């Protein structure tokens, strides 16, 4: 029978795809597969339950009324121009200014550049001169700017939850803290993060009797205590990833979190930038052993599943295999896969003495960290890839849990007043501590940027200034200090943290700037000139921690290891792990950008769930069935030690078989965005960290639905299939398709380093059509390799293009958040995401391959490809999307009438449509299950809410309205800015130097996976990458000639383990 040319590409799938997005996709579940071809992949739902006919009626009436409105006024509303009275120097209206600053975190400060437009901070970028950033940034730093504008920041102090005046506080503080100051701080305790910056720490030390308790769920607590155990008090380990060849990550996510993760990611990315066969030599081989599935695990060359409780066994077995008998004593048994893994790893580490690193994550106890240091030392890595520094005082430090426990015991007796800075212990302290009960016994004062659960219940909440609003200073993990400068005055009159602290400890000077000056000027900073230089550079020269002799205290370590018991989980005593997703420990829950950002691995957004392995799901009879891409999920009861929590489940391949995993930061009871979303993981946690053993799951029989984007925007065609040499010849002939003359090519291409070394990367091009490619340039400067497919287009002037290196992409989502901040991308809310209407211009597709329980995972960022034969362009009835002379597929919003033909015709599914007026109303969610937006209206004053949020918008990018299509523009505003700057400087705007334009995504990327530039300049980085043999086009068979191409992933596999 002749095939109907208009029939869907796929009637039914005959074979399982090699690369799959979800278990359901692997099983060729119809509801997933069919949605890839459908226009409305998730069905059509009108808000408020209107049907098509109602919509037409309303539309008709609107037109009639609209035409009446037109008669009212022709001229636009008059508009004022308000110039300065005295204009600041350097200020030109409309030009942005960049200020160096830094963000203090418990694991060290990250240097940032804040972009200010007309005095409003609108975006944060990494500071290239700062060692912990190197110009890159993560999702957290990108999102801080929206936190600054959070509409729920308190306008005044809260006294027992109700608004009070600052004067009332001052009167109270004078009396209450006057007494405490007189007693040298006896009875007073401060609950602060691990490192609060030099000035803050200076003031903290002013009252010698006051207790200082360090509490921060994100602190590298075990890492610090572990280093202290191994090397002595005040020790801290630093890792030089760029020098390393073999890295073993035990339960660690060192590429996307923890101390100096941006610098680690940069070095890792550089090692993966393999462009010639000789480059294979420089590749790091990454081993990972973990129970969760982290970005490290998905980028590891070898990954083995363990439960966190088995971590000590794995490391002891490794020590044993390396011949370090005394450290290996008492290790438990490993399973076959783990044994094989450890044997291979040990051999590799032994062969790379001095160039190996062992990273251990926070889920492992301090003794295991110390063991890793001992192994590193035995291998000669300490002093080479691992260096140790010491604090000047070399004071021993207790673990956070012990500090918090001691505090809770002392509350009501020794401690009568507790002041918490920037912490939210009522939510983020594990439930087992019963912090709220203890807090009731003392005068509890909470100072923070947001009130949150703790602030509204504390005796006093004092709004502090955000770090973009105040003077301050910060210390990086390496000890290098930075000055923090205000970009804007405190929006709601919050006081800087250091000013408040100065008031509490009785420091007569409370001005934030003067306090910082008192710390530095004449000490670390010589004079005003040096002060200005430090402000400009973002770092204070001459600061840093001192290196010390790193002698490993083996006896202490073996003694500490004796107290750590390995636990092996089973079906009835599972291991529960709370991990940090984009919301971290909850401090970013009210930032809607991150709430809507799909998790790196599960792709859940506006939801968290108990992630379980497919094997465990089968054993416990847990099902998740997919319906229109939303997951119907069984609700289970998690019970341990008398605590029990009900949570939905989500089956995620790659999770440890008896580990169950849940993201922190959900299940909040405070916050317009955060409330009623997901389940709180801290409610399950005990007092010993983020892992709980002996957890039991019981099916409740209830079900709910979950919001995951993992099956959204599936690219049509059964093309998700790996292509390797061996399979190349076996590619099925005549696979049913209506593609243009070609067999479907694989979307994702990868090979091992060995294959790459053998054939120089032919695998990426094998099967593509050589005749379809031409050499660029004049006969004189012909490149050795083909760059672009043939077109009728002659390349004149600048031609923009992009290359994304799949070897380097971690899937950390920093690019997505940077894109949101740069391009005014709205947040749509949970219900709209469920309909597949998320607006992210750059999404990261996550694919699995291999065994469903032990899969590999890969990340593929997808954004508008700016095709030369763009399929979106000819179908636009109003020419709203057309090519410009530099190869951009431009989108004229004001011309778009919203037919959505372009989105339908886009094979990459990267166009986004404003179904509703998301920009003005869509930044929050309403109660779960409520239709949006009609029922939330009564609870939410949109105008009031947008009042501050809209201050974040980038004035160089149009704010789109309902009914308009949008998509990635290659950050055309930045291209124009660079061109105009060139014109001003008298240079040729058509010959911008390489690197003059960097899109927001490429700028944020820590691994430098994204390269952008002029492909018509053969010397540019992007053109060179396009000449790489790893370069390939997505959906090459469609002949759309995308300007964005990918570099196939090269895996540096250990042959013994392959």
């Amino acid at each position, binding site marked *: 029978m002749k095939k109907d040319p208009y029939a869907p590409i796929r009637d039914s799938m005959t074979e399982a795809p090699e690369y799959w997005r979800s278990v359901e996709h692997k099983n060729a579940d119809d509801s997933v597969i069919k949605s890839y071809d459908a226009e409305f992949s998730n069905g059509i739902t009108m808000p408020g339950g209107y049907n098509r006919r109602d919509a037409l009626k309303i539309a008709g009436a609107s037109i009639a009324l609209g035409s009446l409105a037109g008669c009212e006024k022709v001229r636009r509303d008059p508009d004022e121009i308000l110039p300065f009275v*005295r204009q600041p120097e350097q200020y030109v209206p*409309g*030009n942005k200014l960049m200020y160096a600053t830094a963000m203090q975190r418990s694991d060290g400060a990250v240097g940032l550049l804040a972009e200010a437009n007309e005095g409003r901070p609108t975006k944060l970028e990494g500071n290239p001169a700062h060692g912990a950033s190197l110009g890159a940034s993560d999702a957290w730093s990108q999102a801080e700017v929206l936190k600054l504008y959070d509409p729920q920041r308190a306008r005044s102090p809260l006294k027992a939850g109700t608004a009070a005046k600052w004067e009332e506080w001052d009167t109270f503080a004078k009396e209450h803290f006057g007494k405490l100051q007189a007693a040298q701080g006896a009875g007073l305790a401060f609950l602060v993060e691990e490192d609060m910056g030099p000035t803050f720490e200076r003031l903290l030390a002013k009252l010698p009797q006051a207790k200082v308790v360090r509490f921060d769920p994100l602190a590298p607590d075990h890492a610090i205590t572990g280093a202290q155990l191994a090397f002595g008090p005040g020790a801290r380990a630093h890792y030089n990833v760029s020098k390393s060849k073999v890295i073993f990550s035990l339960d660690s996510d060192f590429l996307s979190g923890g101390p100096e993760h941006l610098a680690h990611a940069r070095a890792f990315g550089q090692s993966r930038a393999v462009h010639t066969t000789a480059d294979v030599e420089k590749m790091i081989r990454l081993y990972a052993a973990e129970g969760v599935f982290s970005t490290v695990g998905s980028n590891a060359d070898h990954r083995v599943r363990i439960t966190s409780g088995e971590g000590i066994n794995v490391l002891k077995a490794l020590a044993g295999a390396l011949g370090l008998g005394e450290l290996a004593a008492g290790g438990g048994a490993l399973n076959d896969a783990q044994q094989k893994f450890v044997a291979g790893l040990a051999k590799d580490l032994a062969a790379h003495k001095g160039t190996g690193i062992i990273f251990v994550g926070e889920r492992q106890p301090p003794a295991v960290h110390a063991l890793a240091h001992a192994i590193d030392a035995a291998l000669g890595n300490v002093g080479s890839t691992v260096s140790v520094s010491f604090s000047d005082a070399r004071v021993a430090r207790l673990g956070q849990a012990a500090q918090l426990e001691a505090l809770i015991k002392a509350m009501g007796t020794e401690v009568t007043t507790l002041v918490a800075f920037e912490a939210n212990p009522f939510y983020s302290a594990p439930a087992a501590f019963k912090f709220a009960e203890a807090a009731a016994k003392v005068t509890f004062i909470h100072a923070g940027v947001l009130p949150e659960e703790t602030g509204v219940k504390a005796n006093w909440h004092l709004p502090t200034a955000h770090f973009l609003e105040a003077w301050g200073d910060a210390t990086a993990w390496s000890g290098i200090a930075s000055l923090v400068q205000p970009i804007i005055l405190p929006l709601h009159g919050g006081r800087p943290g250091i000013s408040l602290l100065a008031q509490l400890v009785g420091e007569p000077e409370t001005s934030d700037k003067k306090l910082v000056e008192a710390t530095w000027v004449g000490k670390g900073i010589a004079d005003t000139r040096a002060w200005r230089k430090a402000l400009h550079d973002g770092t204070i020269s001459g600061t840093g921690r001192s290196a010390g002799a790193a002698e490993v205290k083996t006896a202490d370590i073996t003694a500490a290891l004796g107290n750590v018991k390995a636990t092996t989980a089973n079906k009835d005593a599972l291991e529960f792990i709370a991990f940090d997703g984009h919301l971290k420990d909850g401090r970013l829950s009210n930032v809607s950008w991150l709430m809507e950002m799909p998790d790196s691995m599960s792709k859940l957004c506006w939801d968290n769930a108990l992630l379980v392995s497919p094997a465990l799901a089968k054993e416990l009879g847990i099902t998740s069935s997919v319906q229109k891409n939303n997951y119907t999920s069984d609700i289970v009861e998690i019970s341990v030690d008398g605590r029990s929590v009900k949570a939905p489940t989500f089956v995620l391949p790659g999770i440890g078989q008896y580990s169950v995993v849940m993201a922190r930061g959900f299940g909040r009871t405070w916050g317009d965005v955060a409330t009623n979303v997901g389940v709180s993981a801290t409610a399950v946690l005990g007092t010993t960290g983020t892992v709980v053993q002996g957890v039991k799951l019981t099916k409740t029989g209830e079900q709910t639905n979950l919001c995951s984007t993992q099956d959204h925007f599936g690219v049509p065609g059964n093309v998700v299939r790996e292509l390797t040499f061996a399979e190349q010849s076996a590619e099925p002939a005549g696979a049913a398709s209506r593609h243009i003359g070609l067999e479907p090519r694989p979307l994702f291409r990868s090979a091992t380093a060995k294959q790459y070394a053998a054939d120089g990367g032919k695998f990426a091009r094998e099967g593509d059509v050589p005749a379809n490619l031409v050499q660029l340039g004049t006969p004189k400067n012909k490149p050795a390799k083909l760059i672009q497919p043939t077109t009728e287009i002659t390349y004149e002037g600048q031609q923009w293009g992009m290359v994304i290196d799949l070897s380097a992409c971690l899937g950390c989502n920093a690019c997505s958040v940077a894109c949101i901040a740069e391009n005014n991308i709205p947040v749509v809310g949970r219900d709209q995401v469920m309909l597949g209407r998320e607006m992210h211009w750059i999404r990261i597709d996550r694919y699995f391959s291999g065994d469903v329980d032990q899969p590999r995972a890969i990340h593929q960022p997808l954004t508008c490809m700016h095709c030369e034969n763009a399929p979106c362009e000819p179908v636009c009835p109003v020419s709203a999307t057309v*090519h*410009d002379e*530099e190869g*951009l597929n431009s989108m004229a919003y004001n011309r778009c009438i919203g037919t959505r033909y372009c989105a339908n015709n886009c094979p990459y599914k990267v166009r986004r449509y404003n179904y509703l007026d998301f920009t003005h109303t869509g930044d929050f969610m309403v109660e779960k299950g409520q239709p949006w937006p009609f029922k939330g209206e009564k609870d939410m004053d949109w105008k009031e809410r947008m009042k501050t949020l809209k201050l974040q918008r980038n004035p160089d990018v*149009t*704010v789109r309205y309902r009914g308009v299509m949008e998509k990635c523009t290659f950050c055309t505003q930045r291209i124009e800015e660079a061109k105009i700057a060139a*014109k001003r400087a008298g240079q040729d705007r058509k010959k911008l130097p390489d690197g003059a334009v960097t899109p927001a995504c490429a700028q944020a990327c820590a691994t430098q996976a994204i390269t952008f530039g002029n492909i018509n300049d053969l010397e540019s980085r992007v053109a060179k990458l396009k000449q790489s043999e790893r370069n390939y086009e997505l959906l090459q068979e469609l002949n759309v000639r995308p300007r964005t191409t990918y570099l196939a992933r090269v895996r540096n596999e250990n042959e013994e383990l392959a």
Partner: protein
Amino acid sequence: MAQIFPRWSNQTPRLITLGALVGLSATVFALYWWASPYHTDVGYAPKQPVPYSHALHAGELKMDCRYCHVGVEQGPHAGVPPTQTCMNCHKQVKPESENLKLVRESWTTDKSIEWVRIHKLPDYAYFNHSAHMGVGVGDKRAAIGCETCHGRIDTMEVVRQVQPLSMSWCIDCHSNPGPNLRPVENITTMGWSADMAWQEQQKQIAATLNPPGSLSGAQKFVDGHMQTYATAGCSGCHR
């Protein structure tokens, strides 16, 4: 029986139809014109809070435009000057003038003077003054003068909008920028006109702004040839 209606009345329906059509077209055209920038915007001359006269300052006193509008060569907006700029002179010149009452008030109270905006583009169109203050490289450098878009400011007591600032008006110049190019040193000169040598120069500079043969949706078929325009893409102004 005599005919009731005369013979010419046979034409009536046609005349009515014709009349209706003409009337309708006239109405549509009138409304179109009434709502177009040519009617609504050109000539707009709102009363400003301070009766500042460009005719006096720029015309009679021959002050350079850039003394006050400092942003014009550096950024997107030419900018309305801060009160300080007025006070630079008016601390000495006419310090007691009734007309300057608001300026002095602003100076002492630190509150901005609320000037009324005259030139206003839609939010989705981006315009950058500094991009027009110098294009081309080396001896092929030229600029658009203030006068080209803002008219003879030096003669205006009250500033009014002289050009429609419509998209077609922009495109007209971008299609054929030559005649509006002037030497960079004459940007602020009022009443400037090109001599014969410069007219030749204009053509040559314009040719460098329009490289032939590039791919563009904004190519047009003119006089038997495809021609490309100075900034041909949409994304130059619509981002």
